[in-house]
């Protein structure tokens, strides 16, 4: 059935370019068409932004939390659950994984949240512009110690990571380049550096200090001149290594699980042609991320790559909350929900290091797998939630479904998920213990609802469900 294929493709697009979608939304997107939906995702400006004041009204602590633990996660979760521009939010997550900055050191939630706001705002624009913003971002400056990078005493932390992790990758520059790059960014610092007490943290601002900038000539990647930071970023963007590096990141994030960053120097991409296509779009559009994403989502390699990525913890938590519904309102408990991603191994605003998170199968170990299953099973097992109720009523419309029909309908509504025969049979065996669904009496309906809840819990505990 053509329509079913379209639903499956649209579900794939929304899992990747967003945080999944309810069946009602998928049907609406299919009516609109694939390319038109991609365009809608690429133009977040057309959507009403998330109302931050709504969150503030009920949770005033979310305003400039300073050093208060955990509130930043909740604020970002609120955005991710409520956004009408899911790709914009997803790109903020993408960049956060690359420009990985953590409160563990910055110790100032406001500044990291400001960085995320910047990534949300600029993340679909020019990569060069994003790099400039990042280079002048107070949280980043503090995180990589550029405030300690002085004309007479260069600190190469920022200079090195800019080349190794934010643009080109190891093997494409020398130690000398790292040093010269660091010199070019001397004097890029933050103000004010006032003490934390008695009035709490002050907002930081970027400040360029001419008197602390190294004015001598620098040699960087074969170019020589009295470079400042802007010049360095300009040179970096022109490097073919940068286009490939960003392409591999995009591929790993949106298309299929790849080898991890430290292996890129030695391990070739799984699909070199796809990487080339993305890298070409990056160069041709002069680093315009929106153009690159348009190429990516409309390509066959993307459309064919279904269920080839292990969901990140952010995807697990946010897609589940959006799917079951009932968590849009800034309800009590949002603080605890915000921490769940961290429990599964991805504490947003606090990556383990500047290298961000290892992804793919490295999300999975016996502890994190348990966390994922437990979190999702608790929610889909709660038949009071609107998204679960919607599944119950769709099943009810089907009447006294057989065990096989019951299982197939659940798999369809939870994905659609395409299982191998043995796994599907196992679920059918489970459903057959209690026979066809029965709705005749209130007691029947109650028992059947309980069975549905149990079946949904089994479905989300499947290995297949760990993939996006």
């Amino acid at each position, binding site marked *: 059935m053509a329509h079913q294929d379209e639903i499956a493709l649209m579900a794939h697009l929304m899992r990747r370019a967003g945080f999944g979608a309810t069946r009602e939304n998928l049907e609406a997107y299919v009516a609109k068409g694939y390319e038109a939906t991609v365009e809608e995702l690429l133009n977040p400006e057309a959507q009403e932004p998330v109302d931050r004041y709504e969150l503030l009204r009920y949770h005033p602590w979310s305003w400039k939390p300073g050093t208060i633990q955990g509130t930043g996660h909740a604020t970002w979760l609120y955005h991710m659950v409520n956004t009408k521009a899911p790709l914009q939010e997803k790109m903020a997550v993408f960049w956060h994984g690359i420009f990985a900055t953590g409160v563990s050191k910055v110790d100032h939630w406001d500044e990291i949240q400001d960085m995320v706001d910047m990534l949300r705002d600029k993340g679909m624009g020019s990569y060069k512009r994003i790099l400039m913003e990042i280079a002048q971002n107070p949280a980043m400056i503090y995180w990589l110690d550029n405030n300690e990078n002085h004309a007479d005493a260069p600190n190469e932390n920022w200079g090195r990571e800019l080349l190794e992790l934010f643009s080109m990758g190891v093997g494409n520059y020398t130690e000398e380049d790292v040093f010269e790059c660091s010199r070019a960014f001397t004097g890029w610092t933050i103000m004010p550096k006032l003490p934390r007490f008695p009035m709490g943290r002050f907002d930081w601002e970027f400040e360029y200090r001419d008197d602390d900038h190294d004015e001598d000539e620098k040699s960087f990647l074969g170019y020589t001149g009295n470079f400042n930071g802007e010049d360095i970023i300009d040179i970096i963007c022109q490097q073919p290594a940068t286009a490939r590096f960003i392409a591999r990141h995009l591929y790993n994030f949106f298309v299929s699980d790849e080898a991890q960053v*430290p292996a890129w120097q030695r391990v070739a991409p799984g699909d070199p042609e796809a990487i080339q296509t993305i890298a070409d779009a990056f160069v041709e559009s002069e680093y315009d991320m929106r153009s690159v994403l348009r190429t990516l989502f409309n390509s066959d390699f993307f459309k064919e790559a279904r269920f080839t990525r292990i969901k990140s913890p952010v995807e697990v938590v946010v897609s589940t909350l959006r799917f079951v519904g009932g968590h849009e309102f800034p309800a009590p408990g949002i603080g605890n929900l915000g921490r769940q991603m961290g*429990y599964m191994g991805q504490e947003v605003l606090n990556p383990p290091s500047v290298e961000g998170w290892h992804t793919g199968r490295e999300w999975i170990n016996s502890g994190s797998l348990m966390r994922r299953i437990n979190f999702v099973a608790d929610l889909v097992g709660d038949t009071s939630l609107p998204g679960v109720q919607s599944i119950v009523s769709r099943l009810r419309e089907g009447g006294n479904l057989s065990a096989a029909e019951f299982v197939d309908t659940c798999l369809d509504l939870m994905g659609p998920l395409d299982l191998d025969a043995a796994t599907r049979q196992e679920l059918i065996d489970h459903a057959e213990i209690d026979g066809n669904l029965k709705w005749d009496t209130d007691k029947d309906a109650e028992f059947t609802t309980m069975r549905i809840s149990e079946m949904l819990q089994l479905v989300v505990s499947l*290995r297949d469900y760990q993939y996006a």
Partner: protein
Amino acid sequence: MTTAQKDPVVVVVQLSGGNDYLNTVIPYNNEIYYDNRPTVGIPQEQVLHLDDEVGLHPQMGAVRDLYNQGNVAIVHGVGYENSPRSHFRSMDIWHTCEPDDVGTEGWLGKVIREIDPNKENVVTGVSFGPSMFRAMAVPGVPVACVEDLNNYGLMPGIDAEEQRQKILNRFSRLYGQAIGRGPVMEFLGQTGLDALQGADILKVAPERYSSSVEYADTTLAKKLKGIAQVHLAGLGTRVFYCDHGSFDSHAGQPNMLAGLWSDLSAAINDFFDDLRARDASDNVVMLLFSEFGRRTHDNGSGTDHGAAGAVLVIGDNVNGGQYGDYPSLRPEDLQQGDVVPSVDFRSVYSTLVEDWMKMDSRSIIGGEFEKLGFISNGN
């Protein structure tokens, strides 16, 4: 007390972020040290002297006491050639023993596989923390990855125990199916089954535990307490892992390092007290390492990424003392501003694997490396 009947156990504490060797084991009698450390140098009178040349960071009192009891081996100048000075890459090298290639198998994962090739005990290796360390990761080798020992299990949200059991049985059948859909699918299946079984075994550990030792309320102390609980429960766990940090002290180093070592030193002390009170310390050796040391010259408020570091090995059966020579701080001996490693980290591993775990280290470490004599029953 005899050690003959107890299997050797190794506890690894990873100091993530690059611990500053020079301010941990301080060459306080060396003028070049003070010349290089105008900001973060630790004054002679604050150093906890071990001998006429070196001493420990002022917050390492408990470690100094253990050293004086002969239970701490300090290995100087540990590292490997051509240090990349990248956290990620260097940690990978320490985890996989593959300095020239990207390794997929962690050295401790291989140790676990060697101990338990038929996967008879899924808690042979237990990792404490939210995510697993690559050192423990070998495809197909189970490792229990525990964050909170008290609430560890699958679908605890289902109240009706009978219904929960019904689902868990089905889960175990679903995860046990070989469906030939590639290595990641197989990996997920095995991980799910191991998780199920590991949870069943580990739940007894907090139940069986009682102790008079009051651990501090720090993240690290909680991890070491968890390790003590599992070890004392006698579940056959041979390899424990946890981390502490971040030691990435580019700026504000003095306070940062003091806090980290204060927590660490106290937690190590409580951990060994706890084990000793139950006659369970003599088969435990603890290894502390970091992915690299830090630059010799400070940068005005901290230190940048360096090369050689120090490794500490602690335990009743450790031959206390210092191994290897303190690397030269003379400018002409430095490489890119860093002290040069004189002991390969794989020498430390091979000593532990051969002399402590009583296993052949070559396939685990990837070659033969000169052993150090820091295990007392190893000769």
